[in-house]
């Protein structure tokens, strides 16, 4: 443990940031392209060299080994600077966090320092085209063949797999047991023969998500994360990390958090109203205030839940509260945005095409955060069943060998 106090650490970080990191100039690019990703890898490398990469990760694997307060202090100090924020989710907050929990010494030594240096971007391969929210209803298979598993199947909704390096991939290794008990989590190198990555075009024109196709992909047994046939344990923990990271409550992310960013602390709504010359309209004022208040409440909720979980007074699944809160905040914020934009959301002159179009198309993507990383429905199940102890939903596939489970209709 360090002997440096949080305040001492904060002062050291402040000085270092001013010296080493570029200041944020103007708005963040709202879409990640390859170029931006390259910039962020370099920024991450800069953090590494300054000793500020992975502040909450174990020191043994290149991290800072420090408590969450230190990371929070650093994040607060870093706000004026250009940070590699896209590494937070999913690489650091979800995948690296899961590696910390389940990796062998060799796995951690091989990957964590490389991640913290910005050399490896990670992604999760969990969802499947037929599976929806039922992640354990996994049809991708990995069949044992000596020291290898041979993987076949398909995964979908992975973020930016086309520019990432490694994935954690859940595959079925045993079909004769009920569904949760026949899964294994693998560390998979993405760019290799047998894996084809296709980008999916989203409603807003972005191409961030991917579908992957596996055709006899060989995976060394050494790349099993956790135990064979116990992949659901790993996946469950991964999902907890995901909810925390997406909800803004991860101890492993650095810089602005997802929860805050998406919950309305920017000034864009107020700005729109001012530009329209309608700042005196009491109805619009209520809406602008509502969005702002939701941001403040979301921030307070992150504090409450992360503190509660870290002190063991809340279950880790309380992260679902954060995920659900920020997803519903986003829905409401876009609705408010649409109400404020008015006719401008329908059509726009070429002169303002960029801004207006993005604003308008963003509303098409309103449900994005309510679907990705576990839908709102799944979060509500988790909250009611795990936090509140209400009875589990009836599952027709419980305690049935997975090969006998009904998998539904045409879209399957």
């Amino acid at each position, binding site marked *: 443990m360090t002997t440096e106090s949080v305040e001492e650490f904060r002062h050291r970080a402040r000085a270092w940031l001013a010296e080493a990191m570029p200041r944020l100039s103007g708005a963040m690019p709202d879409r990640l392209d390859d170029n931006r990703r390259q910039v962020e890898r370099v920024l991450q490398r800069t953090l590494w060299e300054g000793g500020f990469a992975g502040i909450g990760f174990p020191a043994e694997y290149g991290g800072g080994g420090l408590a969450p307060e230190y990371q929070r202090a650093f994040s607060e100090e870093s706000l004026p600077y250009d940070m590699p924020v896209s590494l937070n989710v999913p690489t650091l907050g979800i995948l690296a966090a899961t590696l910390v929990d389940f990796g062998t010494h060799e796995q951690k030594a091989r990957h964590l320092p490389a991640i913290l240096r910005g050399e490896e971007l990670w992604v999760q391969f969990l969802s499947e085209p037929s599976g*929806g929210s039922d992640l354990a209803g996994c049809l991708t298979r990995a069949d044992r063949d000596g020291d290898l598993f041979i993987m076949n199947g398909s995964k979908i909704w992975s973020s930016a797999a086309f520019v990432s390096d490694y994935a954690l991939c859940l595959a079925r290794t045993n079909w004769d047991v009920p569904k949760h008990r026949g899964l294994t989590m693998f560390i998979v190198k993405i760019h290799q023969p047998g894996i084809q990555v296709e980008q999916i*075009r989203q409603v807003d024109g972005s191409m961030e998500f991917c579908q992957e196709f596996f055709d006899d992909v060989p995976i060394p047994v050494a790349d099993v994360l956790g135990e064979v046939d116990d992949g659901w344990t790993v996946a469950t923990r991964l999902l907890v990390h995901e909810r925390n990271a997406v909800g803004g409550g991860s101890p492993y992310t650095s810089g602005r958090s997802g929860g805050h960013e998406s919950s309305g602390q920017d000034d864009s709504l107020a700005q729109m109203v001012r530009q329209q010359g309608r700042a005196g309209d009491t109805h619009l004022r209520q809406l602008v205030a509502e969005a702002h208040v939701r941001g403040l409440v979301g921030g307070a909720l992150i504090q409450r839940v992360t503190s509660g979980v870290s002190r063991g007074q809340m279950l880790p699944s309380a992260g679902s509260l954060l995920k659900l809160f920020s997803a519903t905040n986003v829905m409401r914020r876009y*609705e408010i945005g*649409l109400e404020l934009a008015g006719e401008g959301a329908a059509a726009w*002159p070429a002169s303002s095409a960029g801004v207006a*179009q993005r604003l308008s198309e963003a509303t098409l993507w309103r449900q994005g955060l309510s679907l990705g990383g576990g839908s709102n429905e799944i979060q509500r199940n988790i909250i009611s069943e795990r936090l509140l102890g209400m009875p589990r*939903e009836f599952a027709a596939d419980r305690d049935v060998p997975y090969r006998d489970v009904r*998998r539904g209709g045409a*879209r399957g």
Partner: protein
Amino acid sequence: MEFVPNDEQIFFQETTRKFLSVHCPIPVVRALESAPAGYDPQYWRQGADLGWTSLLVPAEAGGGSLSEGGLMDLVLVAEEMGRMVSPGPLAPVNVVASAVAAGGSAAQQAAVLPGLLSGETVAAWCGEHPVEGVIDGENLLLSGLASPVEAGAQAQHLLVAVRTEGGLRQVLVPGDASGVTVTPLGGLDLVRRFAEVRFDQVVTTPAERIGADEDAAEAIEHQLQIACVVQCAETVGAMSRAFEMTLEYLGDRYSFGRPLASYQALKHRMADNKMWLEASHAVMTAAAGAVASGSPAAGEMVSAAKTWIGPHATELIQDCVQLHGGIGVTWEHDLHLYLRRTTVNRVTHGTPEYHAERIATQLLGAVS
């Protein structure tokens, strides 16, 4: 009284539905994304042949409808076009054709109606955003900007509302009149095109005036009501289709060994969606009936429909996206076409807030 389509109207509606499914299924709509007009002129002429553009024009002026006044027939077309997120300037052409038939001189009718009715020409309605008019002898000089104007860049005719010292006036000018600059706009809908129409000292003659001066304000209000009714009917059609797709999907798709449709939380949301859908259909029909029958409550009912339907349509379709899961936010899935159309319909011809304010004015007086 609830509007109940008669057999003839049902046949007409089915004809339209079949035509759209054969000649303009959704892949065709998608393929029109970068077509400048957003529709194929041949398709529009065929639609006109089916009667789409004739319904608000009396038989003696070359039009014809199944019901008195034709608005209830037009509602059926609009619903079908909404179900297929179809392209084509249905609202502006009908609004202008109706206005010319009602208030145009014989010469104007002869010059404009045949083309609109046959689908050879189209018209745009600039009635929502009046421009400034200065009286110059007999003429009226127009200046200002009307935007967004549906089909503005495709229109051979522009029906323009003009604010003059003496009150509102209406003129019908060629789309290529001197001093008129039409600039296409980008937009959210893949095939519905808007433009901004700029008037720079455009000289209009008395022969271009439409209707008696003192009737202009009322005529423009009536045009707005028709435009809103057509738009609401289209939105309701889009809502219905998105709802049906979702209901079917929930039945097909299994999760945890059960169809999604068996989850009570989803069932209850679909129940609410069904209620919003039926309520939207109901208030749209009531508004259409009020406009068709010339009821004094027409303006109120239209604003009620616009206030109610816009946000419920987008909310319903967003929930359909949510119920579809990830596939619902992909380009490949059709839901976003419905979301685009209903979002555009929500915010044009007056936002819900604008129409709520019209209702408030009736209840509480104007804001001082």
